[in-house]
């Protein structure tokens, strides 16, 4: 066999189409970069099979099965959405083949739904929340959280809360994912915070949809009540609304201007060359996944036997646009740096530019291990 077949199952279409496409672009660039442009490891050609899960878990599940069996994929990457990922996990176990999860974030993927064929280069919700806690957590700060009312939002708030050491949480507000009018929710948060002494902060944990930033900005809370807004990073178009919050702090997974290392330089250069735009959140993720794959395959010298690969990957460190990542032995989650940022409103950019305050190293974050082996 002179080929290594990699199935990439992701949202080519569906609500997360834009995210999925970033991952795919990053993955291809990453494979290219990691193989020095040959797209081969140990003389075996890397073949990427793309499959579109349309954001539907049932479809993702059957596509993955078909990829492992009909398409003879040796290894699979993806998917974009957590729901799809969770449905896919048992398929990897059934076929005894590796699924490298990127960028689905749910904790359960490397938590209680995990099996030994699952690895993840993407960050999980806990990593997000903990790093954000690090950015917010100061003595005397009073915090209210504002999150979407579903598993992602509630888990995020819980992880955030667990990670806070100094600041105090006084209110948790959960709003429907489809909220369009934030007046009531913000009013409740403000009512909870406005009379508190010291620094007051709203921590926003929001993914996709319409985030509440414009509504928060319009209320002018800083001036009226001295309430600040904190949040994590996001894709570039979504960060347009950050322009209203110069000085806003938080922690992000990736922003192309932040990491300083040769891999990131290469990614940014390649991306500008190919698309005339900087790489985004999910491009970096796809790139990291590719780096992990090639590093592992090099270690097995191109062998795709699942047990060999697992052995090579457990505890493996690899270079990514975010610096070095390591698959934790226990749950196969890649531990990685996060970035504490502060927003600057730079007219040259259409989005609020996150400037690095501090890199939060993996060992600073006690990311809990939640799986059972």
């Amino acid at each position, binding site marked *: 066999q002179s080929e290594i077949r990699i199935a990439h199952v992701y949202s*080519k*279409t569906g609500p997360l*189409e834009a995210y999925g496409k970033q991952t795919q672009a990053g993955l291809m660039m990453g494979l290219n970069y990691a193989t020095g442009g040959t797209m081969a490891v140990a003389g075996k050609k890397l073949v990427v099979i793309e499959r*579109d899960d349309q*954001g*539907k*878990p*049932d479809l993702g*599940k*059957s*596509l993955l*099965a*078909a990829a492992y*069996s*009909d398409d003879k994929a040796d290894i699979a990457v993806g998917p974009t959405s*957590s*729901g799809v990922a*969770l*449905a896919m*996990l*048992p398929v990897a176990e*059934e076929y005894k083949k590796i699924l490298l999860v990127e960028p689905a974030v*749910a904790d*359960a993927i490397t938590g209680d*739904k995990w099996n030994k064929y699952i690895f993840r280069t993407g960050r999980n919700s806990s990593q997000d929340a903990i790093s954000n806690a690090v950015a917010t957590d100061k003595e005397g700060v009073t915090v209210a959280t504002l999150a979407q*009312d*579903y*598993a*992602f939002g509630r888990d995020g708030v819980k992880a955030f809360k667990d990670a806070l050491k100094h600041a105090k949480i006084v209110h948790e507000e959960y709003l*429907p994912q489809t909220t369009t009018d934030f007046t009531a929710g913000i009013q409740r948060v403000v009512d909870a915070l406005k009379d508190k002494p010291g620094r007051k902060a709203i921590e926003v944990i929001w993914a996709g949809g319409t985030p509440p930033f414009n509504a928060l900005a319009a209320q002018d809370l800083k001036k009226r009540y001295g309430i600040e807004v904190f949040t994590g990073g996001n894709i570039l178009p979504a960060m347009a609304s950050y322009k209203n919050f110069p000085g806003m702090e938080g922690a992000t997974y990736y922003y192309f201007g932040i990491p300083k290392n040769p891999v990131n330089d290469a990614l940014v250069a390649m991306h500008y060359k190919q698309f005339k735009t900087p790489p985004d959140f999910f491009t970096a993720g796809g790139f990291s996944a590719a780096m992990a794959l090639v590093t592992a395959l090099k270690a097995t010298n191109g062998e795709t036997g699942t047990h060999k690969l697992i052995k090579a990957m457990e505890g493996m460190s690899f270079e990514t646009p975010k610096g070095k990542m390591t698959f934790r032995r226990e749950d196969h989650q890649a531990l990685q740096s996060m970035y504490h940022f502060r927003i600057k409103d730079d007219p040259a950019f259409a989005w609020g530019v996150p400037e690095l305050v501090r890199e939060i190293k993996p060992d600073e974050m006690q990311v809990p291990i939640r799986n059972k082996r």
Partner: protein
Amino acid sequence: MLNRLLSGDYPRSRVLAAILVAIFVGLLLAPFLFPGIKALNVAAKVLVFVVLVASFDLLLGYTGIVSFAHTMFFGIGAYGIAIATTRMGATWGALATGTGGALLLSLLLSLAVGLFSLRVRAIFFAMITLAVAAAFQTLASQLSGLTGGEDGLTFRVPEVLLPSFEPFEEPFLGVSIDGRLISYYLLFVLAVTLVLALLRIVNSPFGRVLQAIRENEFRAEAIGYRVVVYRTLSSVLSALFATLAGCMLAIWLRYNGPDTSLSFEVMMDVLLIVVIGGMGTLYGAAIGAVLFLVAQSYLQDLLRLGSEAAAGLPWLAALLSPDRWLLWLGLLFVLSVYYFPTGVVGRLRSR
């Protein structure tokens, strides 16, 4: 014999009969005729949808009730299996409990919805069911402790139905006999039985009264049929069959989530299949389901070929890109309404 099975409702067109036989044989031998996981998945989905669409046709085509809440019952069935097996483990008892519980819930809900349908006018009713279905979906994702929320539930079914169950060493006719195959044939038997049962119902005296109600409710009442009773009964029956279709889906997928069985998208697919196949004839459900699901499943592959062929013309390639498969599906919606105003079955019968 055949007359009894088909309840005297023959295809009444030679071509139609030939197509139906082909579909039956194709589904019966699918694992052997079309190898591969993907093909088997498509065939299984066809089986589920034939039942689902046929049950919807009882409501829409025969009784003339437009409801968008049909997938709600489909979802209840699927969740019934999912929740029961998650809680009770992968046993036959769990499957039975899940199915039974789901049927009971569907019965109660459909009674409520059915009775409400008499209070308001048809178009209002349609819109209300649209909203109710949306609310139910929201509710399902909110009750994450029970339903797994947005992420849904992944679960196991009894050993015999799992792909890992391989009773025979040797493959049979080049196909290895495993739990997946067994579960496919379970679905097949269920689907055939349920569709024949529905066929019997629509061709019974009861079925004719439903048609009369569809045509002129006022007059049906005037000649002595209690419309409330018939409409409610029809709602309930159709909901129960949809619930069973949902159970079939869950057994096959071993997964269920709000998007899989409750989404408006599924509802639209069902509607389109009814219309493509031909409203008010159950054979249409079978033909429509095959046409639509095969088109839906292989459209992207087809487009991939198309866009490669059109690589020279960038804008055409952009339109033919597999990523824009929905565009073509939309076109399918439009064209099928244009060209099959009475559905495939109506077309064939009027020749």
